[in-house]
């Protein structure tokens, strides 16, 4: 699965996610990636793209949950993403991670698996890319 989140110079947010699914999956199985609110979500508060155990991300509405925790719970981006990725997803046996950006340009890339391919960059600064472990 791949994805992107961005904050533009006008202060708007957007998210996109794309995937080939899981190796050897049953034909017709759909994961979280194409479902707004599960594997992909953007509002005027936060943009989120997920990768992981699709069924768990669907059941938790993981991407929207980050936004809801911020909007209704008053959590920061860091608190909201930590709650979802490090607490809620593992509680249901899921693993993986997400990338998220808020309207202030804060970027969080948490994961609860052993590694994740990620990159980010602010306009005018050097791009950063790594296999985070």
């Amino acid at each position: 699965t791949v994805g992107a989140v961005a904050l533009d110079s006008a202060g708007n947010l957007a998210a996109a996610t794309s995937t080939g699914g899981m190796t050897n999956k049953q034909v017709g199985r759909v994961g979280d990636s194409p479902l707004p609110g599960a594997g992909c979500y953007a509002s005027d508060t936060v943009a989120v793209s997920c990768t992981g155990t699709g069924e768990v991300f669907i059941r938790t509405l993981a991407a929207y949950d980050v936004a809801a925790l911020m909007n209704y719970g008053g959590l920061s981006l860091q608190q909201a993403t930590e709650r979802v990725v490090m607490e809620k997803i593992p509680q249901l046996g899921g693993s993986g991670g997400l990338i998220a950006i808020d309207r202030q340009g804060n970027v969080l890339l948490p994961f609860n698996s052993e590694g994740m391919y990620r990159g980010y960059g602010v306009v005018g600064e050097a791009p950063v890319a790594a296999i985070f472990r």
Partner: protein
Amino acid sequence: MVRATIAIHGGAGTITRTSMDAKAEQRYRQALTQIVASAQAMLASGASALDVVTEAVRLLEECPMFNAGVGSVFTHQATHELDACVMDGRTLEAGAVAGVSHIRNPVLAARAVLEHSPHVLFTGAGAESFAAAQGLEMVAADFFSTPGRRKQLERAQNQQKVVLDHDEARSGEPLDPDRKMG
């Protein structure tokens, strides 16, 4: 002043000692860096966040190292089923496609759904008909196949429980391809 920013991911998963290959890691880092740099240039020129995430994901779909577009994994029946979604935070508009096999860039189809349909999600043949009607590039089903992904399927089908086996040497990719989500 807004700090225009892009972040991308190419999946998460398991790292095994045998899969840590320095050259492979460098290839992945280079691909990610190029896509981030391209997105930064778009943002610097005033492009919208929606355009930037669409293009970043399109580039990831074009890179065979990641599980999306070219290089997608195989289903049990040795086919490909691709899914994508795009969402605009400014308007809460969204577009998505699922279970498509002939659209070169599913993220562009998702974007077309967002822009040119009153609906949010199209699946299978309906999604492909919609994409074709929008003038998107259609490809043969094997366009997305790579030898590495076929071997990955064969391992999965031969061993059935391969997703639980992380002791065996794999392809040398930084993340074990059999235990990577996406």
